[in-house]
């Protein structure tokens, strides 16, 4: 949101236009006034940007605080941790979320688990506690993969504060909505999250490591399941994985669908053309690297992020926006 306030700029530009209408003589005084107006407009723009920046920082801090408090409630289930350690853990989680480091967050969670289970040295949690820990971890990972959620919340806070309302509206116009995905994706994602959490909980509770390893081995041998966690669960996990991937794949737009179809046709029926296209793509990439320092051709640099399969296809065909 680096653009100035449209209403402010509109007002000042109208006033400038009124002063210098075509056909009217312009004097040196009038040009001085225009210069003053321009500098005032720049000052207003800078002030507006500063306000937006301040609100954005405050909004980010509030969000981080809320996320950290939720994590603290979810992960810090046990009260056996002292306040200094708890505060340290709090700071580590906040730092991990600020700098968006997934591995640091996971280390922090492991640290919390270690503190909750002092002296045991084994992974042994109650199923419900484990469920909440998994939900918390998946929430963090999902939040890291969804930067637009953070942007939406920040925009909401900016709208509440009354600064830059029109700018926010402009950003979330039709094009912005198409970029961020539909309502369906927002409904599917929590469901996926809960499903993965439940499955992870089942798997981790039945994991053949820990206090009940001997019992698990005996029951597994007794039921004839030599292959953990059993045929049914493995097939179920694979089917859910395939289903989730296909649901995610269906979020492509028309140009990507067209590109996919042409790529499948090229790979399936015209292997020789595919080879030529690959060579041409390599040459284009080398030229682009020499010119701009980027590994992608200029036509591909402006493209949105697409699934891996489609990305590999774009290497074959640099002109991504074709028709069927």
């Amino acid at each position, binding site marked *: 949101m680096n653009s100035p306030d449209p209403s402010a700029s509109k007002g000042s530009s109208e006033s400038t236009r009124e002063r210098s209408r075509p056909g009217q003589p312009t004097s040196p005084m009038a040009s001085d006034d225009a210069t003053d107006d321009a500098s005032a407009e720049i000052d207003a723009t800078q002030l507006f940007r500063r306000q937006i920046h301040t609100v954005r920082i405050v909004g980010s801090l509030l969000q981080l605080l809320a996320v950290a408090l939720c994590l603290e409630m979810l992960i810090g289930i046990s009260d056996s941790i002292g306040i200094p350690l708890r505060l340290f853990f709090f700071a580590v989680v906040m730092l991990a979320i600020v700098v968006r480091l997934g591995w640091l967050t996971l280390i922090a969670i492991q640290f919390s688990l270690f503190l909750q289970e002092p002296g045991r040295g084994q992974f042994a949690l109650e199923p419900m506690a484990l469920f909440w820990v998994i939900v918390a971890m998946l929430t963090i990972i999902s939040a890291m993969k969804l930067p637009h959620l953070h942007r939406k919340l920040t925009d909401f806070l900016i709208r509440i504060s009354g600064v830059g309302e029109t700018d926010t509206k402009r950003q979330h116009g039709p094009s912005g909505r198409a970029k961020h995905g539909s309502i369906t994706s927002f409904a599917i994602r929590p469901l996926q999250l809960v499903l993965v959490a439940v499955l992870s909980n089942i798997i981790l509770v039945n994991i053949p490591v820990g206090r009940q390893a001997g019992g698990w081995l005996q029951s597994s*041998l007794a039921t*004839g*399941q*030599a*292959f953990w966690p059993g*045929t049914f669960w*493995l*097939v179920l996990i*694979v*089917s859910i994985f*395939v289903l989730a991937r*296909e649901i995610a*794949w*269906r979020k*492509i*737009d*028309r140009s990507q*669908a*067209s590109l*996919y*179809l042409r790529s*499948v046709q090229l790979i399936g029926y015209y292997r020789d053309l595919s080879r030529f296209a690959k060579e041409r793509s390599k040459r284009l990439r080398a030229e682009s690297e020499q010119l701009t320092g980027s590994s992608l051709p200029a036509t591909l640099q402006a493209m949105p992020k697409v699934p891996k399969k489609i990305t590999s296809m774009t290497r074959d065909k640099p002109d991504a926006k074709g028709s*069927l």
Partner: protein
Amino acid sequence: MMFFWFREIAGWLLVLVSLYMLRIGLIFLNDINNPRIIESGVVMLAAIGVMRCGILLVRVSTAARMCQAEMRSK
């Protein structure tokens, strides 16, 4: 338009068949008294191939439907 739906249904059926084959392969492995590892590998490879074909059918028909709907709307 209906043709693409048939293709998609066929693709999902292929995915289901591949899952069944996967289950058969796992059952081969689960048999402690007479483990059939080689047979299981063969069945698994076949299951992966069938699954890839099914997913390809599903994706191609989905993409084709999207393109066709867009062309009709224009």
